[in-house]
């Protein structure tokens, strides 16, 4: 154990990830077996329910928000920071994106543009509050980002429950956004959101690889004190990183609202648990953006397959969540992935 465990490498070595997935699959299968199911039919249902020709669009559609939230977690993680406030930031973005087209006149394309930009800016600014909490008030961002989620969710819930509620329905939700301001459908469940998210993902990867800012962020991730000594303005960098991270969370909220739900509905953005799955995927990849995107897509396939499994075998789809957690735990225990590694 000693050699691998003491490896100072921050990124898990390649064989570790397939190994962790294997462990997750085995333990998940064991759990199915113990609870009286057949693991093989369960896994078969997951694979066909996510990767077959007919279900691939659903997987891709699920991957858009999940990969988005993976980037939300991966960007700060690249610099050794953790943003646990994705839920609140996504809600801020989703709410803003639903309200802009409702209360702003103009042609559809302009409304979409304004809604997305406003959602990204609002969510980005909300996320910088957490960075500000650490740089100015000494509240660890890990905690402040998480705590700030609750007021955002409560506020959004209040807004759509009372002053801006669609009074024609019994649910706490805004009225539908006008048809013209909805994202164009590509085919089946897929809408233009996937193109926007793909573009953002490419930009993040390019920024990470080829710019000074990306280099400085990686340097911070390896050794923040060294980065600071080398002239990286740590506080400003943290604010910028959180703005970018929050803005992408806002984009995810906006894409869900404008692409598939067409309104902000209380709780609808949070129930799929994209934020935590995204964080898991980012941790799985150790914050490296390209690997994180792949991990996010993998989790999206797993979860989409989970729906099929639940339909066909009556095994609850939360099994896929258990598997994700096992994969991360195994990896964390085996290689000490994350920020500093070791027990400190």
């Amino acid at each position: 154990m000693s050699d691998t465990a003491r490896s100072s490498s921050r990124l898990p070595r390649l064989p570790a990830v397939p190994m962790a997935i294997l462990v997750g699959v085995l333990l998940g299968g064991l759990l199915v077996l113990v609870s009286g199911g057949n693991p093989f039919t369960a896994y078969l249902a997951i694979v066909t329910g996510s990767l077959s020709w007919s279900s691939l669009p659903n997987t891709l559609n699920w991957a858009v928000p999940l990969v988005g939230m993976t980037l939300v977690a991966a960007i700060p993680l690249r610099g050794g920071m953790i943003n646990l406030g994705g839920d609140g930031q996504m809600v801020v973005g989703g709410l803003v994106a639903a309200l802009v087209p409702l209360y702003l006149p103009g042609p559809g394309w302009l409304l979409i543009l304004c809604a997305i930009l406003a959602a990204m800016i609002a969510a980005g600014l909300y996320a910088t509050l957490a960075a500000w909490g650490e740089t100015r008030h000494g509240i660890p961002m890990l905690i402040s980002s998480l705590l700030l989620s609750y007021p955002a969710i409560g506020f959004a819930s209040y807004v759509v429950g009372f002053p801006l509620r669609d009074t024609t329905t019994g649910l706490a939700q805004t009225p539908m956004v006008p048809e013209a301001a909805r994202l164009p459908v590509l085919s089946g469940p897929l809408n233009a959101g996937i193109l926007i998210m793909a573009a953002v993902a490419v930009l993040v990867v390019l920024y990470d690889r080829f710019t000074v800012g990306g280099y400085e962020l990686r340097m911070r991730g390896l050794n923040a004190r060294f980065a600071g000594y080398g002239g990286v303005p740590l506080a400003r960098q943290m604010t910028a990183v959180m703005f970018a991270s929050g803005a992408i969370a806002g984009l995810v909220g906006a894409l869900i609202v404008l692409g598939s739900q067409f309104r902000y509905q209380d709780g609808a953005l949070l129930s799929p648990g994209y934020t935590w799955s995204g964080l898991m995927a980012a941790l799985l990849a150790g914050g490296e953006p390209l690997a994180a995107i792949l991990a996010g897509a993998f989790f999206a396939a797993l979860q989409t397959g989970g729906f099929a499994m639940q339909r066909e075998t009556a095994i609850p789809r939360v099994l896929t969540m258990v598997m994700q957690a096992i994969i991360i735990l195994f990896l964390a225990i085996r290689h000490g992935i994350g920020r500093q590694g070791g027990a400190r």
Partner: protein
Amino acid sequence: MLDLITPFLVNSAVQAITPILLAALAGTLCGRVGVFNMALEGQMLVGAFAAVVGSYATGSALGGILFAMLATMLFSTILAYGVTIFRGDAVVICVGMNLLASGLTAYLLRQMFGVSGTFSDPAIVGLDKIRIAAINAWPVIGWIFSRQTAITWAAWILTALVTIMMFRTPLGLRLRGVGEDAEAATSMGVDVTRYRIVTVLVAGAIVGLAGAQLSLGTVSIFSEDMSAGRGWIAVVAVMLGRNHPLWAALACVLFGFADAFSIRLQGQGLPNQVTDVVPYLVTLAALVLTHGRRRKRQDPTITASP
């Protein structure tokens, strides 16, 4: 304002404080040995689920409590061994544990009892409320102590015991030594790894109690994700208290009253979406206000960024 503070408010605040206080106690224990325990939320959920299972199976609340403590202890082995022998990162392990707890309890709920969402059954025996006539007659004390569960009593007794143990016994000295300077502790002959493992496991059992109070204390049901952020509040209480059990307890009291007060405000006609936020805002405000004090002795185990 003052007329909002009623015996009922005090009583429900004390009830609300119990699970958070127990979790925060566990957090301070872990923090003292240098393990930042962010998995309190997940541990509490496991405890709440196990308590219901134990109570359902044995037909006694005590069975539920014991099962909750055992199950949570078992669950805590991930953290205990993960950060020591396997040298994993505590934050990543804790995030994983929280998700595992949430997924596993939801999965088992469906597979064992065939329900999703909330499980309630007459066979689940809840905790008895302890009534002591002599105490109930007193004004303020009576409000606090009347009709509370044994776990609430245990929580406050444990707070005192942990404080005494930590600061007045050789065991506590070694414990603090492990967290403050592991190398120095090792050179004094303290087995750091063993201290960490045992402490995290004992802390796990204490969070198990918190879970039992949650599911058997007032309601006798289990519902998915019923810890509902209480574990995170406990993490904040540990931070606010800088790993000192009494200061952490004070933070829990603050939160408990904010929580009870927010429920009271609902009665005054404010929508619950607004009042639900009050405890978190109070917590954030407390974090901002205590900044100066924390900066002086910033605990190495709780700084988020390297």
